[in-house]
């Protein structure tokens, strides 16, 4: 009896830091949502309280004054094209590395994997001039290609591990039925690794939607800004215009799709990220 009382107190005590950290994580995010509904005057008067009225002015301001609509489109473009391109490039390579015996397959895999550990910032200077030569600088198509290639190592890594779980007998049976290796890859392996493909794609989409620094270097004109750059721009402007409400609204626009994806795919995202990190 005595022990259970002590245990009960212990469990309650342990909850205090857990609850404090929950507040530390949720409150800033919550606060950002509240701020997006407040007028600037109200943000000054009452920066961290509840808004007096919920108005959507900030959102329409962001939409009309800062061309957030263009940026949302650009971000969607690089996210979707980048994610699709990553799959097109990564699936065949992952399959070949995992299932076909050829000389150098280990070396090739190692090259891809070690790229995950190398600081890419050194490569960004030459990449800037390469894109400029190819007429892909300041272009969302160019950025999509760069994004796709940057996520190849991670995607190949995760996809090979998913493909290794597909029984070999299925491929052999399909080959005996006269299916070509192309058919096996696209009609047998691809559908059977759909779970891995979805995991990789969600991770890549979040990555591309959130990405900031490569966009900062490789995009230059406002019409091509992704959401991350547009927000950064609004934030810098807000130092002078004090348009904090608009800033909060644009932050909300940027984070909402991520929250929705997280609510739907919470387990998959957590698993995908921890697996990607454990590769070392």
């Amino acid at each position, binding site marked *: 009896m005595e022990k259970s009382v002590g245990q009960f107190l212990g469990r309650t005590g342990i909850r205090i830091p857990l609850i404090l950290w929950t507040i530390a994580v949720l409150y800033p995010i919550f606060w950002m949502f509240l701020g997006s509904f407040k007028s600037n005057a109200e943000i000054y008067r009452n920066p961290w309280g509840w808004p007096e009225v919920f108005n959507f002015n900030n959102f329409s301001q962001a939409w009309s004054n800062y061309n957030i609509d263009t940026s949302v489109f650009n971000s969607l473009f690089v996210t979707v094209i980048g994610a699709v391109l990553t799959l097109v490039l990564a699936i065949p*390579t992952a399959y*070949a590395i995992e299932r076909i015996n050829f000389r150098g397959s280990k070396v090739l895999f190692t090259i891809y994997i070690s790229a995950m550990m190398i600081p890419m*910032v050194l490569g960004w200077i030459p990449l800037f001039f390469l894109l400029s030569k190819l007429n892909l600088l300041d272009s969302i198509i160019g950025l999509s290609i760069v994004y796709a290639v940057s996520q190849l190592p991670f995607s190949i890594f995760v996809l090979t591990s998913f493909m290794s779980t597909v029984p070999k007998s299925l491929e052999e049976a399909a080959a005996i039925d006269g299916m070509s290796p192309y058919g096996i890859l696209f009609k047998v392996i691809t559908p059977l690794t759909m779970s891995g493909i979805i995991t990789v794609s969600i991770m890549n989409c979040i990555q591309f939607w959130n990405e*900031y620094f490569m966009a900062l270097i490789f995009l230059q004109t406002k019409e091509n800004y992704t959401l991350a750059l547009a927000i*950064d721009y609004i934030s810098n402007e807000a130092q002078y215009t004090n348009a904090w409400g608009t800033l909060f609204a644009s932050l909300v626009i940027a984070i909402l799709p991520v929250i929705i994806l997280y609510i739907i795919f919470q387990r998959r995202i957590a698993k995908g990220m921890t697996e990607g990190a454990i590769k070392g």
Partner: protein
Amino acid sequence: MVQTKKQKHLFLAFCLLPTFILFAVFTLYPLFSGLYYSFFDWSGSSSKKEFIGFANYVQLFKDSVIPDTIIHDYFLVVTKVIGIMILAIFFAVALTQLKIKEAPFYRIVFFFPNIMSVVVIGILWTFIFNPNLGLVNSGLEVLGLESLAKPWLGDEKWALPSIMVPAIWAGIGLFMLMLMGGIANISKSYYEAARIDGASEWQQFWKITLPLVWPQIKVSILYIVITTLNGSFILVQVMTGGGPNNATHVMGSYLYQQAFKQYNFGYGATIGVMILVLSLVTVLLLQFLMRREKVEY
């Protein structure tokens, strides 16, 4: 499989070549030509690219900002490793060992900052540190501690520690999950045996949990070090741009400033080489220091 050698090679080429060519063009070539550029004085226009040997490297050693950027990077590495590991281990143990009913809720909440955009995190925290409106100073005011309020990100002494806070805030979840995975793999029988022998929960933590999740701890530390050295400049760029008065510049943000703001592309590439060398040396050194016999009972 009924397949000629030629067909097999064709299929292999189909699978591997397009991907590898793009990877070579957009990842391998830029990395190697970055090394090459570091030997040139180059402001971007192709006509004025001049080979200057090791002059950029000599400048690197003379540049008084460079040592500060290195110190700032390693300050972030050390504080992040300590802060994240302590909190992540604590939360991982609390959520797995202590049978808390609402543990899944905490797990879901704590992980979320890991998938937030660095821009959103940076701007949100810039506002939290805002001298007039921010949560930190308003909070201090409410507590009657106005004297401690300061323009956090504008203060040369406090700007870097202020950047460290969101870096830890955003990092905990992932490592907590990695450690929880490790703890889940520990056989329950060890704990039962320990309880029978009268070991306290605290002793169980030191003698069973910690040694057995050492592989996960090691991977986590390495991962924090790599991602900090290769990516801390993004948060710095968003929150302070390296200021005030270079007080928060890390190697990556200084590279960005030199190359893309002042158009010293050759010198920028030299800084990039330094980042590459330092992060490889650090990782190898850590792997050497943390090698430890795998514990098995």
